[in-house]
């Protein structure tokens, strides 16, 4: 039986190949959409779970989350430095780490923060030690620079036309262990170095505070408004913060208990500040993404239906052309069930081959896309199948099995004599 089916497929190999490729493409499309959506969702949920609460200046929750979780270079409004001091002193807070964005080096974001955050992201450094002086830096696991390297930060990014800070070069003292988050591509430096580099520290009068109020770290800031301070790279870092600190875009907070987390969020949602659970914001974002996925999947399934219909048409025509052959089989007294199995089996074999190719191709494509995205953002996007895919796969399999039955049944409608005359 299988020999006969294979001999037959060999005879129509061009057509068979076309059918397999068509099915493989449409199945691959479905697979990629499903896997990729899941990868993005899982990957960023994992990236977000490091920080329970993010506090920033009043503005967009989404932007604050994306900047804090993905270190996306976007101009964030600044909030008063006193917020950091208040949070750091709060007994409900396990730790509060400031983050200052805006600079980059060789395309990697330079983030000003404290050693607390380094200890939280990577309790055990992969290499070296944390920074202890203003002119020192710790690398994320995936920043391809050697220990001891000199880093010249650039204001903004090269693409947005930033300029290099010539006043200071950081020296790399350590490297964090991989975290699977955007921080793997970050260069962590002392927050005070960032402040001083941008001329913000020790200059706390109202005027200056205001001057830096909205756009302090923006790349498109004009030179005239931009003062550069001088930084002493050998000065030891000071991580005690008081109410006189300059403005900063965000503080990452680890509350002691869940109840504390909710209370803190409540308290810091106000006129000037905004507090968000990044996980929650991302979930809301993915609800939209989920809708997108449904839409894409509907399109993919639609394509699939069209492909199946086209294949059905082809096979019915094919069976028409094969009526003589089927007539001959029946003239030889071969039972109808065997003929059904042959015609059905041949088609189903093509369907199955196409589906197998499509699923593995789709998986490979999703892996590739994830790898590309990871290379750019350092956020690990896990491509994996889940039990939720099973009903869809079974459904498609069942539909294919039923559809393949149609030509077989069509083939048996006429008498063998009629079929032989065809």
């Amino acid at each position, binding site marked *: 039986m299988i020999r006969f089916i294979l001999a037959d497929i060999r005879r129509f190999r061009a057509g068979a190949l076309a059918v397999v490729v068509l099915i493989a493409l449409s199945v691959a499309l479905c697979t990629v959409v499903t896997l990729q959506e899941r990868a993005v969702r899982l990957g960023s949920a994992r990236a977000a779970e490091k920080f329970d609460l993010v506090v920033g200046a009043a503005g967009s929750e989404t932007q604050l989350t994306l900047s804090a979780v993905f270190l996306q270079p976007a101009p964030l409004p600044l909030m008063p430095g006193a917020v950091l001091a208040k949070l750091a002193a709060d007994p409900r807070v396990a730790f509060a780490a400031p983050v200052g964005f805006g600079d980059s080096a060789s395309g990697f974001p330079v983030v000003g923060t404290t050693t607390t955050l380094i200890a939280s992201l990577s309790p055990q450094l992969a290499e070296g030690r944390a920074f202890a002086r203003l002119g020192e830096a710790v690398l994320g696991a995936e920043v391809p620079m050697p220990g001891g390297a000199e880093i010249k930060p650039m204001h903004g990014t090269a693409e947005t036309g930033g300029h290099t800070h010539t006043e200071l070069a950081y020296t790399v003292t350590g490297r964090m262990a991989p975290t699977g988050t955007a921080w793997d591509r970050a260069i962590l430096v002392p927050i005070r170095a960032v402040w001083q580099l941008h001329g913000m520290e020790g200059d706390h009068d109202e005027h200056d505070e205001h001057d830096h109020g909205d756009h302090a770290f923006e790349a498109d800031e004009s030179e005239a408004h931009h003062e550069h301070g001088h930084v002493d790279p050998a000065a030891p870092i000071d991580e005690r913060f008081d109410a006189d600190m300059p403005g900063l875009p965000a503080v990452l907070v680890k509350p002691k208990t869940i109840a504390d987390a909710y209370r803190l969020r409540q308290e810091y949602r106000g006129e000037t500040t905004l507090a968000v659970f990044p996980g929650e914001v991302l979930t809301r974002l993915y609800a939209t993404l989920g809708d997108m996925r449904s839409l894409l999947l509907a399109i993919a399934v639609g394509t699939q239906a069209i492909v199946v219909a086209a294949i059905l048409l082809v096979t019915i025509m094919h069976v028409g052309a094969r009526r003589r052959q089927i007539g*001959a089989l029946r*003239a030889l007294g071969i*039972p109808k069930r065997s003929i059904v199995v*042959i015609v059905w089996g041949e088609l189903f074999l093509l369907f199955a081959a196409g589906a197998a190719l499509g699923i593995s191709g789709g998986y490979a494509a999703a892996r590739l896309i994830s790898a590309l995205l990871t290379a750019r953002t350092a956020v690990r996007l896990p491509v994996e199948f889940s039990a939720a895919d099973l009903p869809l796969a079974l459904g498609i399999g069942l539909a294919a099995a039923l559809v393949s039955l149609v030509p077989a049944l069509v083939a048996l409608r006429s008498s*063998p004599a009629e079929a*032989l005359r065809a």
Partner: protein
Amino acid sequence: MLSLSIRDLEMRFPGLETPALAIGNFALPAGGRLAVTGASGSGKSTLVNAITGLERVKSGAIRWDETDIAGLPSGRRDAFRARHIGLVMQDFHLFPGLSAFENVVLPVRLARRLARPEAERAAMLLDTIGIRRPQQAIETLSRGEMQRVAVARALLSRPGVLVADEPTANLDRRTGDEVADLIIRLAAEEKATLIVVTHDPQVMERLDRRIRLSGGRIDEDSAGTPQT
């Protein structure tokens, strides 16, 4: 060996005023050897289709021994044909992509497991008909060889009757004679009733009995007066 008896058979096709075939009474004893002749369109193939169960018969009876094939549903007709009737057609209806041997055993293989004795018999039949390389791909055989393979296939399951519809029409004179020879010889050896549709006087001569169809009726029967 099977005997054939036909009663009040009438085959009509839509769009035809007169029946394509009308046979009131006809009998062929077991082991009989019958030649069927007649002009083109006289109903020869229609007769073959009716007695082999390839076409549904709506009126009349066609009895092979005790089985009225006209009364059977199509599935049972297929099964009866597989078991009792060896069929050789004008176009050989062999299956490309398979070897000569595989073509001979195909009807058995697609219906059930091929048993050892059947495989041996297939090899023996191929040897008898003069196919020296049973594994040769079927599409590389000569036309004469192809039709001989078709004869071997028809005989594999020891049918009680061998029916051939113009088996030599697609072959040249000499090859045709060889194939006709083979059919007559093997039908005798296998003790099968033989019915051959043919235009070849030489073939007719070698069979015991000859009927001629005209307009769907038997207008000449070498065994006696034609019945209507």
